[in-house]
């Protein structure tokens, strides 16, 4: 018997110390790499945007939505940040959110920070980015294409990020359930959460693209001339031209 508070992310003690250490080291190295690579994507225009995207993810992660009777889900945000600010900056965004949540709000353990960063800030962001990248042709074609891309990328990032926990549990999980049970339940719950994640991501990316398509990293990283054909370039040209 024990008492615990329900929080949003992995608590301390769920996986053993060596496993926490391994994923902690991997996460520190990867976040360091991200800090180096992010410099190329940050300038006077994108840096404030990235700061606000981070705060936005913090805010939306507070909103647990029901998925089943007695179970809820919340945004992870991997595809959202990858599409808006790119994967390297995006990894830093989610890492900052997780650090603030753990240190200030006691949400997500301290030794579990490495595993939480690995699952959400690394797997979630880069899987979301890989899917969005693969669908970039569609995303560029129209606003609707971008919204579909955001939904799919977010759904996949949620499910694959949940596999990160299964991996960590398989390596060094505490007792309480078999790995098979954990796998089935994690994927099942996160397939449902992924739908919510997809809706939130699609709505947010769609809203940003409607007013400031130039701030959507996914639309920007190729030759700039290649603005979405068709209905794209009409917005706001009057004031700048």
């Amino acid at each position: 018997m024990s008492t615990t508070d329900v929080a949003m992310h992995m608590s301390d003690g769920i996986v053993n110390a060596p496993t926490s250490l391994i994923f902690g080291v991997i996460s520190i190295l990867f976040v360091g790499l991200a800090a180096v690579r992010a410099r190329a994507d940050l300038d006077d225009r994108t840096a404030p945007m990235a700061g606000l995207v981070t705060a936005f993810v913090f805010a939306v992660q507070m909103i647990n939505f029901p998925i089943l009777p007695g179970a809820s889900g919340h945004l992870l945000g991997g595809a959202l940040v990858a599409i808006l600010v790119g994967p390297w900056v995006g990894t830093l965004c989610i890492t900052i959110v997780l650090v603030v949540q753990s240190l200030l709000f006691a949400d997500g353990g301290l030794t579990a920070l490495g595993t939480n960063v690995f699952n959400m800030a690394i797997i979630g962001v880069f899987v979301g980015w890989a899917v969005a990248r693969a669908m970039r042709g569609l995303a560029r074609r129209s606003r609707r294409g971008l919204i579909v891309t955001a939904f799919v990328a977010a759904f996949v990032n949620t499910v694959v990020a949940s596999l990160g926990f299964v991996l960590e549990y398989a390596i060094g999980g505490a007792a309480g359930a078999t790995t098979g049970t954990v796998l089935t339940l994690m994927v099942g719950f996160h397939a449902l959460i992924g739908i919510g994640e997809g809706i939130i991501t699609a709505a947010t990316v769609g809203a940003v693209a409607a007013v400031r398509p130039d701030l959507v990293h996914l639309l920007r990283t190729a030759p700039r001339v290649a603005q979405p054909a068709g209905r794209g370039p009409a917005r706001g040209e009057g004031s700048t031209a």
Partner: protein
Amino acid sequence: MTAPDTRRRSRFLIGFLLAALVIAGGVSYLASSSPDGLDSVTLHGCQVTETATGEQLDGACIAQNATEHPAATGPLADYSIGGAEHSVGLAGIIGVIVTVLAAGGLFWLLRGRRGPAAGDGPGDDGAHDHG
């Protein structure tokens, strides 16, 4: 960069910040208090009873192994102000402000020394993506 452009940009950024503040400060009251996906998995097999000190777990489940967070008694623990009821909104607003300052500050320091991006700088595509 023209003046209307700057104004349009800051209007967008302020709107984005306001959205985050409204979500954390207001919409957070509507959030479901059921365990999320991960917690549902770690609580699988246990009976959860609410007690004055938290949730009491009976049975065999992963969450039995969870240890108390070192900051569990901190002033903002569990998205409340000192544990006060109905303070999630204010805690959320503090969180948004702390996050935007921490992240904005870090990203501002990290930004490439390219000078003010003219909005269409050719430097934008020099990164890791060559398509």
